[in-house]
């Protein structure tokens, strides 16, 4: 770190030093680690740029920021991932949170995007979630889809009349950006609903904390068994919904999302699907406002 902060370059060096200390994972007891990544004592590092006062050492003053960072960021992670927390259990989830956030600190001005790379991380580093990595990945995808459905932008809707005039061989429809299609190996939708319901009941019983904690241990939501499902996470009138889809319907929507023409998308449904079925699906999707012009 430069001796004098007399330029933007020196300011950047100062900010890098402090940021590295602030985002470093906490030690046991939620205390700041005694040594930095390079092995130097943190007391020495802190004293280089932070003044002590009559009550706190430089280390302790830096520790306030270190703790605030982790408390804030972990809080946000817990809020965004209640299903994953329930599936992994408290200790494993906490270890995953720290490992993920240490590897992928926020790169966005908004905490909304904090878990955007969680599924990728779980896939890349399965040791944090083993032996339930497949389930954890699916829950992470599902919970990120909820964030997207909550506040992603909407594009102008294509109604049934416009669809009726279109030439299927040339028309490429878009799927609303807030709709996420998921092909899953577990019924994550019902699992997440059950977890949310349990957590709501727990919050409502907050005037009896001891009894509630005990109840929470007893009322563990059973982890979902393997079952193939196709689901869209979306919103209607700004309320979040999960809609189960039939496999051929899912394939049509996925093809539309991926830029196929309407004709090719319908062909992707496969054999055994009737024209009436396809018409019914499109009517429903148009009514839900899922279909839009491509960007």
């Amino acid at each position, binding site marked *: 770190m430069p001796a004098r902060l007399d330029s933007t370059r020196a*300011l950047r060096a100062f900010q890098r030093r402090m940021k590295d200390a602030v985002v470093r994972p906490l030690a046991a007891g939620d205390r700041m680690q005694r040594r930095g990544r390079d092995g130097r004592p943190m007391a020495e590092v802190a004293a280089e740029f932070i*003044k002590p006062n009559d009550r706190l050492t430089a280390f302790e003053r830096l520790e306030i920021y270190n703790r605030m960072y982790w408390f804030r960021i972990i809080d946000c992670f817990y809020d965004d991932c209640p299903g994953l927390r329930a599936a992994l259990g408290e200790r494993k989830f906490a270890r995953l949170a720290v490992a993920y956030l240490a590897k992928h600190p926020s790169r966005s001005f908004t905490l909304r995007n904090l878990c955007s790379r969680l599924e990728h991380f779980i896939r890349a580093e399965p040791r944090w979630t083993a032996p339930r990595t497949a389930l954890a990945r699916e829950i992470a995808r599902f919970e990120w889809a909820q964030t997207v459905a909550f506040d992603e932008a909407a594009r102008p809707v294509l109604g049934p009349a416009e669809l009726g005039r279109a030439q299927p061989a040339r028309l490429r429809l878009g799927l609303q950006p*807030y709709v996420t299609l998921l092909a899953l190996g577990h019924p994550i939708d019902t699992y997440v609903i059950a977890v949310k319901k349990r957590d709501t009941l727990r919050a409502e019983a907050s005037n009896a904390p001891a009894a509630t904690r005990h109840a929470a241990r007893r009322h563990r939501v059973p982890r979902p068994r393997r079952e193939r499902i196709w689901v869209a996470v979306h919103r209607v009138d*700004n309320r979040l919904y999960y809609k189960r889809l039939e496999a051929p319907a899912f394939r049509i929507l996925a093809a539309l999302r991926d830029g196929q023409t309407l004709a090719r998308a319908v062909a992707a449904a496969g054999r055994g699907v009737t024209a009436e079925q396809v018409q019914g699906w499109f009517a429903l999707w148009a009514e839900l406002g899922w279909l839009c012009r491509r960007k």
Partner: protein
Amino acid sequence: MPANAFNGRTDYGIGIGLRVPHYAHILEQKPVVGWFEIISENFMGGGGRPLEVLDRILEQYRVVQHGVSLYLGSADRPDREHLRRLKALVKRTRTPWLSDHLCWGSVDGTYTHDLLPMPYTRAAAKHTAAKIRQVRDYLEVPLCVENVSSYAEFHASEMTEWEFLTEVVEQADCGILLDVNNIYVSSKNHGFNPYDYLDGIPHHRVGQMHIAGHTKFEKYLLDTHDHPVLDPVWQLYAHATRRCGVTATLLEWDDRIPSFDEVHDEALKANHFIAGAKAAPKKIAAAHARAS
């Protein structure tokens, strides 16, 4: 001053923060409120319920935007995508002024989501002022910068916090969002006289004030926004309004949020403390005229 170039020449009086637990009450009961302050970042997602609620609020109320992640003191350049979304929101809300913090919180594109204190150096002031001008020119709306609570002081600092604040806002020609609670918290944490701070800033640049509650720990105060305003902060607020004039004032209550009425009643207590300033507006106006 009640109305000046830094708050879009408005006279908004006392407001409160727009927070999720109060949405239903506000939309259904339509209580009389001077204005709402919104956290800009909560409404920059592009769609969904946040913008629906905001649009309904905008039909009935005056709204001012307050940000938490411009990080005007960060060495990084402003994030273009952030600014683009912020400008879209400014157009939507027609906020007469916009505020964010005099702090840093990101470096090399990594965000701490905290309001980290600046080293009070001339180079940092120059850099920050240039960044404020850049942001304000892009957003085309008056900008006020808020003093933050802090828990650390740096060897590198060359001046007091209020001298740094003055240096930045004079160079940037921007306004001040004076957070009276933050001054009090920092004064206790760093051992300075909060009245020296209040007396040492350019009063004519104060476009808005914040008041809030804090928490006292054994060795320091923490700016928690989860309590009513404490008496020493009210006294400081009364002094600030005597110095700066009766300015748009906002109560921040962000954690353990009580009922809407409790928050609103707490904010309206400010009326009691600004009586002194209301009694002598001409004197204050004359002082500002001399200062500017």
